[in-house]
């Protein structure tokens, strides 16, 4: 009996480890391998260092890498102080309307970045952007100062979307859970509030801030669609768009693309190790949840602080949403003053389009499939790493961190080759299944970590008490573990659904015309300048993701912002 159970457990563990390793490591190995071979796919292999030579000498390549890091650095420098201030205001002060404001940051997290970008284009386009028109009208100029198709436009689109919102979401609970007496002890010892912030609060929060920073750098490398839409028209390339272009051009240049990718991957590995180490050292983050202490009274600063937070919150939610919606009703995107400026034609046309209906079906199928597969796979991975004594559990844990370091575009190439190279996988090419697999791999780090931390909180005693009461391992799992894990499982499912529905970078290279999703359709529309149709699709994607998030929240789900 006992023996039989152990064997089943070992078998399940081995299968999960083998499967995850194969689909995560094999594509990465393919990328490294292909950087040394320059033959076209299908042709006999031809080994050469030509790819590496091009990657290291081509000015465009180096420029793209430089742009990537310049963009990341710029927006982190701007958004970090803002996010720290906002999180502190939301968590530690008597700011009015805190829960409503926090909700807006939460909402912003679920907005698809491409939809948000489209909303901002309407405001900041150099020709017809509303902000520029307002400027011209006010100052009588011919051409306004704002241009979203620029370095600063890209920075703005990021800051006005996830870059700030994610930080606020991650930092607010960290600030809130910090033991207030650590600050109070410093005040009583003779330090001013600012001295306390500098000497106590920031040093204690450093590990949390580091984790957020590393996450930000990694997700900065993942960034693709905003740069694609805003950078390409002015020839501003970043690492991810460069790879996309190298692979999409005819003939595709896999050599330099993969060599470049290998370099970035090597640069990212230390970050992954560091992040894993920091998150593992729990006790240092001093989240004790003890006496919560007094909130800071802002006094006369209450109103200005509220105005500031509300302005940021509106900028990252209402502004892009409202303008995106406006855009869907315009006969010519951005032109408010022409005759018959407003129309329902865009909605009618898109809904009559069979390509749209096919994409909608693909999106729903892919997102639901990804949600289901994620919940099953991630809970298995989390359970194995936390609760079993399986020999390979730490390897499995480490591998689950890999995809967070591999930009989605890159993982896409790896999976593409995997499915073209390995004969038994070839029939899946061009199907929605491939996209499901790609987005699930892309989301494995976050999903597994969420479930792991939940499992770690379930003390061993809960299981042992059940077993002592006479329940078998399987009954315990069903009656104790799953019910206690249920809210987190739903959370992972919802996050995976939303991640899949708006995902572009993971699937951009894998989708064919038959498996195209709404997000990709929107990208196609935007790249080909059909902004009116793009706005309609963007609105639908936005409704889909925020709708699912809101329903989940109504059902009592809290994503990261509350304990």
């Amino acid at each position: 009996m006992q023996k039989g159970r152990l064997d089943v457990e070992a078998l399940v563990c081995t299968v999960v480890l083998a499967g995850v390793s194969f689909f995560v490591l094999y594509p990465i190995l393919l990328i490294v391998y292909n950087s040394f071979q320059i033959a076209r796919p299908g042709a006999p292999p031809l080994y050469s260092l030509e790819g590496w030579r091009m990657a290291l000498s081509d000015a465009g390549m180096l420029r793209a890498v430089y742009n990537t890091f310049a963009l990341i650095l710029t927006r982190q420098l701007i958004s970090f102080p803002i996010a720290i201030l906002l999180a502190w205001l939301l968590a530690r002060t008597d700011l009015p309307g805190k829960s409503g404001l926090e909700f807006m940051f939460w909402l912003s997290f679920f907005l698809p970045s491409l939809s948000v970008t489209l909303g901002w284009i309407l405001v900041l386009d150099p020709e017809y952007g509303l902000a520029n028109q307002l400027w011209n009208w006010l100052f009588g100029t011919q051409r306004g100062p704002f241009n979203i198709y620029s370095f600063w436009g890209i920075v703005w689109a990021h800051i006005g979307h996830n870059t700030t919102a994610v930080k606020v979401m991650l930092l607010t609970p960290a600030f809130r859970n910090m033991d207030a007496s650590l600050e109070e002890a410093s005040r009583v010892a003779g330090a001013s509030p600012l001295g306390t912030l500098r000497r106590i609060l920031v040093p204690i929060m450093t590990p949390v801030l580091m984790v957020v920073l590393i996450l930000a750098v990694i997700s900065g490398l993942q960034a693709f669609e905003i740069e694609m839409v805003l950078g390409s028209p002015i020839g501003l390339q970043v690492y991810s768009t460069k790879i996309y272009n190298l692979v999409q051009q005819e003939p595709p240049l896999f050599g330099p693309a993969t060599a470049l990718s290998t370099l970035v991957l090597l640069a990212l590995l230390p970050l992954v190790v560091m992040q894993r180490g920091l998150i593992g050292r729990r006790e240092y983050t001093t989240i004790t949840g003890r006496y919560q202490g007094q909130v800071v009274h802002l006094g006369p600063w209450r109103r200005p602080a509220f105005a500031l937070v509300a302005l940021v919150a509106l900028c990252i939610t209402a502004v892009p949403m409202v303008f995106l919606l406006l855009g869907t009703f315009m006969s010519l995107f951005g032109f408010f003053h022409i005759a018959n400026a407003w129309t329902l034609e865009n909605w009618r046309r898109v809904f009559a389009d069979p390509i749209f209906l096919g994409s909608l079906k693909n999106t729903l199928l892919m997102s639901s499939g990804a949600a289901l597969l994620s919940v099953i796979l991630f809970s298995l991975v989390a359970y194995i790493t936390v609760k079993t004594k399986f020999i390979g559990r730490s390897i499995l844990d480490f591998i689950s961190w890999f995809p967070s370091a591999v930009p989605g575009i890159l993982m896409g190439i790896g999976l593409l080759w995997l499915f073209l190279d390995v004969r038994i996988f070839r029939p899946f090419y061009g199907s929605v299944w491939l996209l499901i697999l790609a987005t699930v791999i892309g989301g494995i780090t976050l999903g597994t970590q969420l479930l792991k931390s939940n499992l770690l909180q379930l003390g061993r005693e809960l299981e042992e008490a059940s077993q002592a009461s006479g329940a078998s391992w399987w009954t315990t799992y069903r009656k104790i573990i799953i019910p206690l894990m249920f809210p987190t499982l739903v959370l992972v499912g919802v996050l995976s659904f939303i991640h899949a529905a708006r995902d572009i970078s993971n699937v951009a290279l894998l989708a064919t015309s038959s498996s195209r999703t709404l997000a990709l359709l929107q990208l196609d529309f935007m790249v080909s300048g059909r902004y009116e149709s793009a706005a309609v699709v963007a609105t639908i994607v936005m409704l889909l993701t925020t709708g699912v998030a809101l329903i989940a929240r109504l059902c009592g789900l809290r994503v990261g912002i509350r304990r």
Partner: protein
Amino acid sequence: MGFLRIRELRKNFADVAAVDGLSLDIDEGEFFTLLGPSGCGKTTTLRLVAGLEKPDSGEIYLGEPCLVSQSRRIFVQPEGREMGMVFQSYALWPHMTVFENVAYPLRLRRLKMREIQAKVVEALGLVGLQGLEERPVPALSGGQQQRVALARALVFSPRVLLLDEPLSNLDARLREEMRRELKALQRRVKVTVLFVTHDQMEALSLSDHIGIMNQGRLEQVGVPEDVYYHPATPFARDFLGKVFALSGRIAEIDERCLQVKLRLPGAAPLRVRRNSAVFGDAAAWGVGKEVMIAIRPEQIAVWDSAPGGRPNIIPATLKGSQFLGDRYEHTVAIGSEIRVITSPSRLVQAGEQLFLELNSDEITLWPTV
């Protein structure tokens, strides 16, 4: 006039009055304890004194200067009050070593490195932690963390030391040890201490004066023996320890004493001092008034045969005994009522009769509820 003076202090949280018009005088060098159950407002009072909360009204003075006055719009920030504080959670900063934690208040006061070094070593010596300067604080045991917190609070010679249930996170044995050390330390340093606890044992053993708090108000202030043996309110009586109580009626009143006839057939009336009544003069209550007599169990002597010629003897029947290590606890029947008493030694067998002698000086007289 006291050194630390609190006048009519009020603090509401939402609609609940946490501190409800509290006034208090603490002398310089005194060990003063606020004792009360959780939620009685004692910690809030301490935080108001520290400046971590702002009162809704009232004033706090330290020596001459006023620290807080809502009516005069004075509020000295915590960092300006020169008070040392030990938090219940110790609040040691995890990113600093023991030395850095203790040196922090001195660094803020811009002392020279040599002075800081000397003072930190001295403070750590005072709490018995020499040689642990370079340890990171998460690596210390609970007792050691507590000592570091104490050293940090004392290192800059504060005018007042505030202690917020500092012993409550320690295990029983360590708590007793720390209690003795804390008292010895205070005698040596001669700092004024405001101590907050819910443990009557800590309060009674450490304090020069105790203030018993309930629902945001002070019920009684006095020296430990006084509040223990002569509680001023039913709350103080019940909170401070076990009570042996019997009801009866006033049978006779003379110049010094009054006689209380217990509801117990065949027992002689109890002699009680006239001034032992808690509310007003017992004589004024008049003969025939229903009263309750109360006494701490340890003020009862137990005899196995009726001692001749002594007053205030009550016969009882032993129902059972429990050995508690340092004493025995007996359940006895007095008439139809069951009471618990203690004695240092084993008594008669269960079911046999014994005699309780109530010390007439220690009986307090209460109106029946």
